[in-house]
């Protein structure tokens, strides 16, 4: 708990990513917002994150592809998906890859915060 966990938020909608990042920052997490999979991978090279909160459908790569690439750099990375449509087929693919949860938009922020705080306790122990 000494060091706050770091969360990377990826969504092609800049407003979604930045508002969520602002809220998480306000709650004391280290949060970064980016708007594409490529940007996210670049960011992860310089600033590793504990939790990846990503949209499923984005122009350059989808959430599952991003998670696969990111996991090569950070094997312990926890992935959470955001989707506008809970019946999306990619969710099944993500589940098979080992993502932890799927949050439907509009994001229930209390739910997101409780997940983050849960991982905050779990992650250091996993280290």
């Amino acid at each position, binding site marked *: 708990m000494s060091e706050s966990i770091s969360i990377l938020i990826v969504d092609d*909608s800049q*407003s*979604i990513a930045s*508002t969520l990042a602002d*809220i998480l920052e*306000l709650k004391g997490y280290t949060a970064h917002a980016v708007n594409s999979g490529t940007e996210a991978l670049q960011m992860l090279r310089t600033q590793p994150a504990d939790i990846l909160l990503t949209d499923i459908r984005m122009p350059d790569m989808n959430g599952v592809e991003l998670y696969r690439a990111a996991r090569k750099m950070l094997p312990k990375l926890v992935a959470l998906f955001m989707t*506008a*449509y809970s019946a999306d087929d990619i969710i099944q693919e993500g589940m098979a890859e080992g993502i932890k949860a799927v949050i439907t*938009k509009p994001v229930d*922020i209390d739910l997101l915060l409780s997940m983050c705080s849960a991982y905050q306790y779990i992650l250091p122990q996993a280290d």
Partner: protein
Amino acid sequence: MNIIANSDHEDDRQLKRILSTLIWISWCGSFFGIILSLYYRDVRLFAVVLAGSALLGVPFVLLKRRHLHTSGMFLMLIMIGMTTFIATVGQGIRDLAVFGYIIVIIFAGLALNSSYFKLCVGLSLVAVCWLVFGESFGWFVTTPFIGGVTNWFYLAGMTIIFLIAALAVNLLSMNIRKSLERERAEVTRREKVEEEIRQLNAELEQRVEERTRELQGAQEQLVRQEKLAVLGQLAGGVGHELRNPLSVINSAMYYLKMVQPDAPAKIQDYHAKIEQEVRNADKIITDLLDFARVKGGQQEQFPVDKLVHSTLVRFPVPVGVELTLDLAEHLPMVFIDPRQMEQVLGNLVVNACQAMATQKSSATGVKNCAQLAIISDQSPVTSDQWVRISVKDTGTGISPENMQRLFEPLFTTKARGIGLGLAVSRKLTEANGGRIEAESEPGKGSTFTLWLPVNEGPL
């Protein structure tokens, strides 16, 4: 057509019978005349009777060849001729001859057509005139029969003529009776046929009406499906696109509330309003997406009371509505997807509360207050197969014409609604192996009943 032809045939047979009877009677009469003439050695009588019976062969042959009317005419002419001759030569039997004419006329009227009948009447009149005036003016001289006209002779002649007359009258009444019967049968048959035609007509009309209704229904169905297909395509895209901005509004609101925990009450009020409207908007999108694609649920054994309680947490009943829960004890678990059925039950609760929105709240103590009852039991009829959950309100009720369209997609009576709530509810309920029913009394309230399956169905 057939029957008419048959009746013609029947008439012909009748006529043929009459004519052949008459010919045979005439031959019998001739035979009697021959015997009489031989007995009295009267050459004239013998010659005339012999000639007459030979002449009878003509109508007989004509009859065999089916020239009925010609045959009848010949017969009548022969009878008139013979009668006239006998009356001319036989003194004292002239009054008998007059009877003979009457019988000929009756037969002609019965058996032949009206022109032959008139001819017979004319000839008979001429013959009678001849007999009445002939002797006075000295046109002929009558000689008495050799044996004389005794009382016995006269009586026998009268009897024969009477018998022939009786035969004629009998034929006449038979004729009339038969034709009456035929007519009656014909009328009955026509009535029957008409009735059949009427029935067929009615049936046809009904069938046409049914077909038309079916066609209209099919057409409406097609239009509706087309509308829905377009809606489904739109829903996917639009719903997805709207959820992103909604998510931003929601997050932004959350942020504002966090950074302004001590904002004035008015501002907090507006924060709450924005959040509520985001939820409403999201509800509409959910309905749209759900309708466009009802997801295969994940059914599990689930307790009914838990379903009701979790629904009421997700869709709380507004203040002012008096809620009554009447859940039977020891209900079996139902086999459903809890989230989907929560949504369905929630829809019913929300609808019920909206139907009672204008009613006085129970807090004011007014008797007619908004009451919502959720009743759950097992139907005695279907025994252990189903659990039913009824949502009963005291709202405005549903008019009968709206009742029919209640579960139709895009049908709504609400000012703010797209008319998918109940359509989705039904789709989801049916996807879960259950069914949904509605009854309502306008002005008194409505009851929506969910029937949920207990078993997993055939495995």
